């Protein structure tokens, strides 16, 4: 008797029932002495507490990286990582970059032409020439 595989009944799709934010963690790296980190230092002291309060589902890590430009890194549910260099940026611009990482899905950027992607079967079925009535032209 041939072995039959189990058919999956449903596929998990984020957002249909429960919704899970795709960004798991944000790492903020800065240098204490570097001039390019000046905006980042201001961001960490002024803006970050509020940002953390508004996004309790994201783990935030702040770590020094002496002698390097400041970087924000995002870790995602799909295992990927995205990094944005924020050297010489003002705190408000750094917040925008952090928002980009927060809202991203973690997938590689793709150019898509179709707005809707579906894994469902076609609702109306596939047209067949052998079924249905004849139609006058």
């Amino acid at each position, binding site marked *: 008797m041939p072995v039959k595989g189990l058919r999956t009944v449903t596929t998990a799709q984020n957002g249909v029932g429960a919704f899970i934010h795709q960004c798991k963690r944000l790492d903020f790296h800065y240098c204490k002495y570097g001039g390019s980190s000046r905006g980042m230092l201001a961001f960490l002291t002024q803006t970050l507490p509020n940002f953390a309060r508004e996004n309790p589902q994201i783990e935030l890590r702040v770590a020094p990286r002496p002698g390097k430009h400041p970087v924000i890194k995002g870790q995602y549910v799909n295992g990927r990582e995205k990094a944005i260099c924020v050297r010489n940026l003002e705190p408000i611009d750094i917040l925008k970059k952090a928002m980009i990482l927060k809202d991203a*899905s973690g997938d590689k*950027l793709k150019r898509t032409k179709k*707005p809707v992607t*579906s*894994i469902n079967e076609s609702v109306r079925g596939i047209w067949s020439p052998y079924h249905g009535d004849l139609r006058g032209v």
Partner: protein
Amino acid sequence: MFSRSVLRSLTSDLRLSAPSISTISLPQRACLHQTASLRNAQQQSQTQSSSLNPETPLSATPRAQESIPETSIHNIIPQTRDDIPLAKQPVAPTFTSPLEVTKSLMAQLPHLVGQTPHYVTAEIHARPFLLTAGDHIRLPFLMPKVKTGDILRFNRASALGSRDFTLKGSPHIDERLFECRVRVIGVESEPLRIKEKTKRRQRHTKQARSKHRYTTMRVMDVRVKSPEELLKEGAVVIEDAADSPQIEARS
């Protein structure tokens, strides 16, 4: 914390609007946040006596303070609509007249409701999107004023159907006939495009860079309301007219 039904009835009284508002909006909300409504249903009897003043912020009621630790009262993150102050609540659509359904549509509607997977041709900025439940949408633009996790209801549709039946709007279907909810998943970006711009008789080429951002969404459900539901929500059955919408069966 106020119960939603209490809120709705209070707001509808305040606005002096059509009485159909509260009846229309209630069942939809209830299915969205079932746990919240269940929890509120228990508290309803207690809060109803104390909720005479609707202008007070929701977090200020003694009921809400009991459940939240004292330190975080001033910076609560809203989880459900109950946490949002009344002034910032989304406004339910106000209809001037009740929904009018023709007799023939009322007779045909059970066929459409009974056949399950449904599709809807929802229109956003006059662009049609054919949607079924569970679909992923990447809008061709960045939608302003939405956050990830928000739930939107698409109310403009030009067609609604199942395998064998289609209800076509002329040009749109009344939004009280169906429910199509989507959840904002996030913001996607396209890869950087560089277009080289050249002018004649010049060695110089200019590079135009573009990297647009798009809102992504997931369709939560597409649902057609049954005739009983419509009648309960205050629909009026009228005689057929020449241009009244009808459900077309597949030939």
